[in-house]
């Protein structure tokens, strides 16, 4: 279903048009490619020159891009129709994780089913939940009424609770956030928002009391990392030392002593940006922030351009969630947020998160294409 104008110019090959035929947004796609490539460069140093890790991450990235391309060609209507089923499926998977999941370090996050590779159902939920909330709110009048909001809250609370039980505090907060972003974008009244925030603040002590001890220590360490420099404060102190000692231009690629001598924990996953900051300095981090800002900026433009409410809400939520990842990760590494185990999108090593992230971008793009087609064929 292509617009006639598009077909007319098809014989003379133009990459932009070609990309658009498949639903890709060329600007965003190039940005993602550049950022991903930059991530692989950092990963090579952060992993201690592990070709294998870079190769695997590269494969994940290509898989993700492929998935993005596929998703971007999907019809919006199909996506909307599939949303409730996807949500139910992901929720069931989460239940299954609690029953037969596998994992390490006391957390049960993975599902190991015969015939398919191990995966984390919570990654699926990262897409399914904002889509579900967008679906629910756009079925009803906007801005939503209190009743609809309450139902939306239940829809959010169910998977979030399941993920928190694994326990995976970081992911559950991010996913709760993605649901909340939809509600926020759907135009929840400021009064209600204020009330919600107040309730949230009031429930903090409750949250504190149900938190695991190690989670509490992490929060406490944020306020005084030196209180336990060899235990809970170690990560924060070493990350700050890595960043700080990098200075303006860094110690040089692969020459960071904090990372290469393994003082920096999780240097190829959650704390990878500290490696960048140590080896390429403030300059290197600014480069990365610039790339992220361009991606975010483009996503905002695409969100505003999306024609349907569902598309706008979903695109907006995905964009804000992406931003939340970036902010929480950088805040954690630079010592302004507690250590919650959130990877840096597109940069940190890890297969599922790259794929789910790029699928998200594919959805944003899909929301564009369908609109264009619809507007071409009213």
């Amino acid at each position, binding site marked *: 279903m292509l617009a006639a104008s598009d077909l007319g110019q098809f014989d003379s090959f133009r990459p932009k048009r070609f990309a658009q035929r498949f639903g890709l947004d060329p600007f965003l796609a190039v940005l993602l490619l550049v950022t991903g490539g930059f991530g692989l460069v950092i990963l090579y140093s952060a992993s201690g020159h592990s070709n294998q890790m870079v190769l695997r991450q590269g494969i994940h990235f290509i898989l993700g891009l492929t998935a993005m391309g596929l998703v971007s060609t999907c019809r919006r*209507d199909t996506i*909307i*129709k599939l949303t409730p089923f996807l949500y139910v499926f992901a929720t069931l998977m989460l239940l299954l994780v609690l029953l037969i999941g596998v994992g390490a370090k006391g957390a049960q996050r993975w599902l190991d089913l015969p015939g398919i590779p191990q995966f984390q159902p919570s990654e699926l939920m990262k897409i399914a939940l904002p889509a579900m909330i967008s679906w629910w709110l*756009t*079925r009803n009048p*906007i*801005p939503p009424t209190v009743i609809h909001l309450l139902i939306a809250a239940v829809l959010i609370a169910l998977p979030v609770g399941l993920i928190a039980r694994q326990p995976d505090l970081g992911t559950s907060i991010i996913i709760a956030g993605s649901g909340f*972003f939809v509600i*926020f*974008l*759907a*135009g929840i009244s400021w009064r209600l928002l204020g009330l919600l925030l107040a309730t949230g603040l009031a429930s903090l002590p409750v949250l504190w009391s149900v938190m695991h001890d190690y989670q509490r220590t992490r929060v406490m360490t944020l306020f005084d990392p030196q209180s336990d420099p*060899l235990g809970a404060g170690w990560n924060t102190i*070493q990350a*700050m*030392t*890595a*960043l*700080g*000692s*990098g*200075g*303006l231009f860094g110690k040089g690629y692969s020459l960071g*002593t*904090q990372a290469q*001598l*393994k*003082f920096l924990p999780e240097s190829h996953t959650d704390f990878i940006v500290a490696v960048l*900051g140590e080896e390429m*300095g*403030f300059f290197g*981090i600014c480069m990365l*922030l610039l790339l992220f*800002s361009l991606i*975010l900026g483009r996503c*905002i433009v695409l*969100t*505003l351009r999306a*024609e*349907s*409410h569902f598309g*706008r*809400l979903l695109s*907006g939520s995905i964009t*804000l969630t992406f*931003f939340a990842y970036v*902010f929480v990760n*950088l*805040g954690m590494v*630079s*010592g*302004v947020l507690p250590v919650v185990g959130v990877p840096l999108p597109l940069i940190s090593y890890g297969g599922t998160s790259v794929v789910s992230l790029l699928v998200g971008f594919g959805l944003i793009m899909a929301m564009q294409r369908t609109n264009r087609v619809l507007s071409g064929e009213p």
Partner: protein
Amino acid sequence: MELRTGVPERRLIGQRVLIAAFCGVCLLMLLLTRLIWLQLIEHERFVTASEANRLQTIPIGPARGLILDRNGLVLAENTPRLRVSVVPEESDDLEAFIDAVRERITLTDAEFSGFQKNLKSRRRPRDPVILKEIIGDEEAAILAVDAYQFPELRLEARPTRSYPFGRLTSHSLGYVGRLSSGELQNIDQRRYSGTEMIGKIGVEKAYENALLGQVGIERVETSARGQIMRSIERQEPVPGDNIKLHLDIGLQAKLYDILGDRRGAVVALDPRNGGIMALVSAPSFDANIFTHGLSNADYRRLEEDSSNPLFNRALRGQYPPGSTLKPMLGMVGLHYGSVNWKTEIRDRGYFQIEGIEHKYRDWKKWGHGRVNLEKAIIESCDTYFYEAAVRLGIDQMAEGMGLFGFGRRMGQDIVGELPGILPSREWKRSARKEAWYLGETVIAGIGQGSWVTTPLQLATATMVMARRGNFIAPHYSTRLDDDSGRRVNLASTLDWERMIDAMENVFHGERGTARGSAKNLKYRIAGKTGTVQVVGIAQEEEYEESELKKRFRDHALFIGFAPADSPSLVIALILENGGSGGSTAAPIARKIFDYWLLDRNEGERPPDIPYVLGVNDELARRPNAGGI
């Protein structure tokens, strides 16, 4: 599906997106500010922190100096021994690991509890905790084969102090031990930063400063796990000085061999320079067990041993000198004019202070008859010296005898000696807060009463006799040799020679107390025997030596030197509960002199090492050898 493309809703959502974007920009600014603070403003501070992380200065302990005997034989050396330790942070299952170790090597309860204690105490993360201080080669091999299975296992070769002649040298060399917390406060901690051991006693302590050496340092880059990645600079340690002693390990072994099972002490000095050639305290112990990490239980066992192997009898044993001091006392009497060579007394077997009934008995019940100074030395007449002591008076006696070194520590490089007691009016006033009685002067004349001396003091005083009135302080190391000595201004040269003649007749004379040991003597010994009572014998009470329990038998003493006219060996010998000096101590002294002057040809021939080692092994086999 109902499509909602209403304009107001669209505007609302667009508004919200822009609000969110604005918040995002603010948050990004916040992050940027934080990064500017970290990377630009506080940059220097974090550079320092990361350097401190990366660089470590590792002290390198210097090799401790060797201790050599007079022939250059090594008495104390550093041998590499393997130590087993654990890095608990690298262990997945510490208990399983300990069990696995126990299957392969023996781990005593003491070692295990020590390990658990150290495990709980404060330490830097990834610092190894010692599991077993020293393991033998065989156990090391068994453990090394499986080492790859245990990432937490550390097997490190460390130089450990060892004493190849074990029990033979323990009382003179002393030993090194782990630095105690008290010692840590009194030393230059930087100098000891690479050293765990310090000289605790003996030569090891006296020469601690010279033996220690200079610590080296190595600056290394380390990983977070403490692995050394590369060396950045290295300053080599300077090994400690070697210390050469006068000690002759052959003579030392011979003395232990001759003493056999007896408890006692021998000090042998070289009268030409004051060097300590042998210092024997029997029974002895093996100092190696101290450097190998001694458990409290083992230490207690050593300490509670009734024959007291840890007690250094030669330096700390306080024995009444008895008749052995008669030659010195004679010299003091001659000096002050209270006796001369012609002075004669009539000995009826006892001495009485005028107007007092109490009889001070001679060892010979019916007396020695008419006795002059010479005969009093040869036959060891007590009555003569009771009389001489009273004539001399305690103050002059104390002053004169003090010149021989009695009543004070010899000092020099001798650690842990006791001063003994040289009785005097003043001593009694200050030490016992009592007045002096004339009766005490009488018994002081035969070296009893409050008199106590150490074997080292007796040997030193004998050396003054051998040097004809020239005092030289005894010492272990050849570093302290000093030929000058100090003139003891007592009597005349002629008097010294005459006194030595009398001492020769103790052996060679017809009535000498040691004449029984003088058969076929090819050289001349000048000596004096002594027999001291361990318990007081009541007046008029007959006693039979054999009836007394062994522990109450007299101590047998001997002092002497040979060859008499140009002495090369001075000895002082004490056998605890040995019986009489003449019958027990003198024959042993003869054997010692025979060995030194005939078998070893004045010690010029090198010692027979297999023999020396054999004696050491023999000592280890004895039940009362202080062994573990």
